[in-house]
């Protein structure tokens, strides 16, 4: 989906490679639509820059600014020479009236966001650290609908990421992973975890969830 050329005259902005479009923790009012070029979304976690996503033409970013004025949760950096449409919260309605495609796209993005946030909340609400770690793996497995849960599943994830999802200290997560590894439930690699039987984890988490509410 590409938007009307006329919009570019009004809302167009251009960036050179490596330019910051917006920066983590900066207050944000605008959201962006990519006309051409690529944009990298990065976050500095524990003194390392991590790439969260690479976006291209047709993609939207910074859309959380539509909701409320909160600091940006990540930085956006131009990879190539980038042409963007920049929209302010104030003229959001007018913009969408003229561009129903964009409205639809946002609807899809928000649906996914809501689910991801809910899913994460479900993990955080578990009262047992080991189950939290397991449920992060369940969640990651759910994200790939083609995964065969009868077989061992490979999840591309680091300890740091699991700790972020579970809202836990990395050391605690490490201990639990080491333990699960010793029990033969998982295998640990530098960049991935292999879970022998993910249905096992699902069962454990589900039964705890039921008893939590009982």
């Amino acid at each position, binding site marked *: 989906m590409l938007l009307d050329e006329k919009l570019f005259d009004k809302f167009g902005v251009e960036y050179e490679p*490596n*330019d*910051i479009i917006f*920066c*983590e*923790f*900066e*207050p944000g009012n605008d959201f962006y639509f990519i006309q051409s070029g690529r944009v990298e979304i990065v976050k*500095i976690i*524990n*003194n*390392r*820059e*991590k790439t969260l996503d690479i976006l291209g033409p047709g993609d939207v970013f910074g859309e959380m600014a*539509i*909701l*409320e004025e909160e*600091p940006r949760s990540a*930085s956006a*950096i131009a990879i190539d020479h980038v042409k963007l449409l920049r929209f302010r919260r104030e003229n959001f*309605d007018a913009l*969408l009236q003229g561009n*129903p*495609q964009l*409205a*639809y796209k*946002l*609807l*899809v993005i*928000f*649906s*996914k*966001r*809501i*689910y991801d*946030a*809910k899913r994460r*909340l*479900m993990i*955080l*609400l578990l009262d047992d650290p080991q189950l939290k770690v397991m449920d992060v793996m369940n969640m990651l497995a*759910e994200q790939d*609908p083609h995964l065969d849960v009868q077989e061992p599943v490979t999840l591309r994830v*680091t*300890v*740091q990421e699991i700790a972020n999802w579970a*809202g836990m*200290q*990395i*050391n605690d997560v*490490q201990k639990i*992973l*080491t333990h699960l590894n010793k029990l033969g439930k998982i295998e*640990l*690699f*530098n*960049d991935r*975890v292999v879970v022998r039987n993910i249905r096992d984890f699902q069962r454990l988490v589900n039964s705890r969830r039921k008893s939590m*509410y*009982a």
Partner: protein
Amino acid sequence: MSNGSPTQGITTRTYKPGSIVYFENDKSENIYILKSGLIILTSQKLETGEEVKEEVRPGEFFGVKSALGRYPREETAQVIKESVVLVLTLADFERLILKNVNVVLKMLRIFSNQLRRIGRAVREVLGETSTINPEEELFKIGEYYYRAGRFNQARYAYNKYLDYYPNAKYSDLATKRIREIDSGQAESNIAPQPVKRKEVETSTEELKDFTLDDDIDSMPAKESVVDEMDDFLGENDSASSDFDIADESPKHEDISSLFYDAMSFYSQSEYESALQIYKKILNQKALKNDAENKIYQKAHFEIGRTYFKMGQYNEAIEAFSLLMKKFPQSELNVNALYHLAMIYEVKKQFDKAKSYYQKVISLAAKEEIGKQASRRLKNLESR
């Protein structure tokens, strides 16, 4: 129960009271509009497990979010009064609402409210409500890029900091940094004394365990790499607690107190100041005794370690090489070799890195440093 009558691909179904349109956890890409009747959506509150019931009125959509987001249904849709329902595929839905943007806007508003509510709940569970100070964090982003030598990005963050917080804690420092960048001075002193970054420092220490997150590709990992090394320098670990923070240069030239002053600067990440004192120690000619001789050797090592921490790898290599040349028997050399290996790993000269790790292993196979070296070597070889 259903009497499909396709109109533009959209089908109509009639449901009897008590029947179910879909169950929680069902997967489907259908979206529904209630034409007439009454349907109740039943879900559970995440926090309490409490049942939540929501009425669908004629003219309203249901099943939208899970179909659009392609995830399992989060609620069960049960028919209360005989109902007529329009069943839309995703394509139907898209076609339909593109003609009626107001519907989308209304949905977006509902969705964004929900998202906001869940976001709040997540932050509450994490206890994050008050801990993050965006002002300080924004400045730290500038510092990160500054030390990484990515000056344009650093300048952007500093400028934004000054825009939003013109008279705040780090305004002067941000101004100074921009000046350093613009004058080209920053180039020559990448990674001068970073502001004390308590939270960041403690959290990088948590990376000590590196079975999984030891991803050299995503360098700069130098922080975490260096922190591993602190394990081998037990006595230095206590530096921050044992020694008072010295604001001024030492008054007397006692070599051991010089050394501890330098360590104290080092532990506060004031690397330039630490380096100055270490270099002063290197200039001492008359060493009184064995103890002083040891400190003298150690200062050589520490210069290398400090440059390493600053990301000035060539200087670090030079310092470690000098140590090994001047004191071929020094017990610090194993650690120096380990550092050289890490430097070459960061510089992506993997063959050199491997051969240095091998040297460490051959010298100290049984010790912790040897074990770490073999772990890192294995890591490199599995690339």
